[in-house]
């Protein structure tokens, strides 16, 4: 089959039409400011509808919407977002976490900050909730398995934690260590992965304002199956990079040995940026199924590079993303 490219500069712009970067960025800023009003309006309307699908099962979390970091996509229903999960500590089926996670005790909870920091310390949940103003942000979530959701998270930029931790010059990476307690988590007995589940980010990734220290979703505290009481959300990477139920945040010199990367290094790289141009060995990543929308008789939607979060592209300039997948 021959697909003809129309030479009209729409699919592939003519070089002469490509805006110089500075002009483009300036324009972006202006448009952003213009657009914020409209986005805020839409988002407020979304919030008004929130009551329709948040269950009211968990305590409410007051948060101010951050429109600059909120996707306009239609949000996934609370039901789908809380019953269709990968959380292997509670089993490997998508329905396992919502069925089994009631045994997790999200309170009391402490997170210890350690490693290459001036002075290690711990934070309990109340301290975490008060550390910075809570924001609501609507992020796209793309799973490495080829499905996606759109979720309104509650939290603040992880950079707030970094500021408080005062990492030393040796800190090149951040490692997230999650809970692995057989008593609370029936899946930890399995040998599917090495426990505890460990994830990590390069320092500049961790510092990026999009990286969200997350304490809630849909205006409430996190349900257990979604990583209560505290998780990380990294929206431009595949979902497994967003570790759940975090107990330790370590600032380290060397690249963390992350759970999926150790399990299958050829399939799950350390970076795992959402990238339609880099296939998973066993399936293409060029498209995705949006849960609740793309179903029967509809083509899958095209996956966007960095999940549509182009702001992060500069973190990887000069890196071969096929090699560092």
């Amino acid at each position: 089959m021959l697909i003809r490219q129309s030479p009209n500069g729409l699919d592939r712009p003519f070089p002469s039409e490509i805006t110089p970067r500075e002009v483009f960025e300036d324009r972006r800023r202006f448009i952003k400011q213009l657009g914020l009003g409209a986005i805020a309006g839409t988002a407020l309307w979304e919030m008004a509808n929130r009551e329709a699908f948040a269950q009211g099962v968990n305590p409410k979390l007051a948060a101010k919407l951050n429109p600059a970091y909120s996707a306009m996509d239609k949000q996934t229903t609370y039901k789908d977002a809380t019953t269709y999960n990968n959380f292997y500590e509670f089993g490997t089926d998508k329905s396992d976490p919502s069925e089994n996670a009631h045994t997790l005790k999200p309170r009391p909870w402490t997170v210890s900050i350690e490693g290459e920091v001036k002075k290690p310390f711990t934070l309990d949940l109340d301290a975490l909730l008060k550390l910075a103003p809570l924001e609501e942000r609507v992020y796209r979530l793309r799973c490495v398995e080829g499905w996606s959701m759109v979720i309104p998270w509650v939290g603040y930029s992880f950079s707030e934690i970094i500021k408080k931790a005062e990492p030393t010059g040796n800190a090149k990476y951040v490692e997230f260590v999650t809970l692995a307690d057989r008593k609370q988590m029936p899946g930890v007995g399995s040998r599917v992965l090495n426990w505890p589940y460990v994830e990590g980010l390069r320092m500049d990734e961790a510092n990026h304002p999009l990286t969200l220290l997350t304490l809630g979703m849909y205006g409430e505290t996190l349900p257990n199956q979604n990583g209560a009481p505290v998780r990380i959300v990294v929206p431009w990477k595949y979902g497994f990079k967003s570790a759940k139920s975090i107990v330790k945040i370590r600032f380290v010199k060397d690249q963390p040995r992350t759970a999926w990367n150790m399990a299958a290094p050829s399939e799950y790289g350390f970076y795992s940026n959402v990238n339609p141009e880099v296939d998973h060995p066993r399936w293409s990543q060029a498209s995705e199924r949006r849960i609740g929308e793309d179903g029967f008789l509809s083509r899958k939607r095209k996956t966007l590079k960095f999940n549509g979060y182009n702001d992060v592209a500069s973190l990887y300039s000069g890196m071969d993303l096929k090699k560092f997948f």
Partner: protein
Amino acid sequence: MAFNPTPRQLGAIKAAAFALALLPFAKLVWLVLNEALVEPLQYITRATGDWTLYFLCITLAVTPLRRLSKWNWVLKLRRMLGLFAFFYGALHFTTFLWFDHFFDVQEMWKDVLKRPFITVGFIAFVLLIPLAVTSTNAMVRRLGGKRWLWLHRLIYLIAPLGVLHFWWMKSAKHDLGQPLLFLVIVTALLALRVWWSRTRAGAPVRA
């Protein structure tokens, strides 16, 4: 004294087996129509794949069951069971062509050639086709019993290929419980035949 049904009873057993074998399909249709599935195509792919393997195992179990129980009549169910393996296999393949490639055959070929686990599954499905086509009495006569029998021994290759396909699909997820179960069942069913053909115990082995 082995149970030996009358023709009427056998008819009833066949009808019951047919209805039971359609249950997984009915369940899928029901779930889809009720929009009870979060990721329908993913679920259908998994379910149809699982049931293809189940029916391959059940079909392979007929001969050992007959020999161990002396219920010769179970042989009369074998054709139907084998055709159900093909039926679920065809659904599985259609779902793959549909939801992974939206009926873009060129794209499908790329995928089949590029990914070993799909290559293996595809070969297994293609090998099932001649068995389904030659399942009628007329076809047995046309081929002649001996040649027909040899052709249908392809199932000894198809079943392990199906297990391998499932194994590779699951391998990176380190979640090999189910593939291992199928591997044990298929290995046991084939090993019995090897052992019987070596020992020549009882009647000569027929597929």
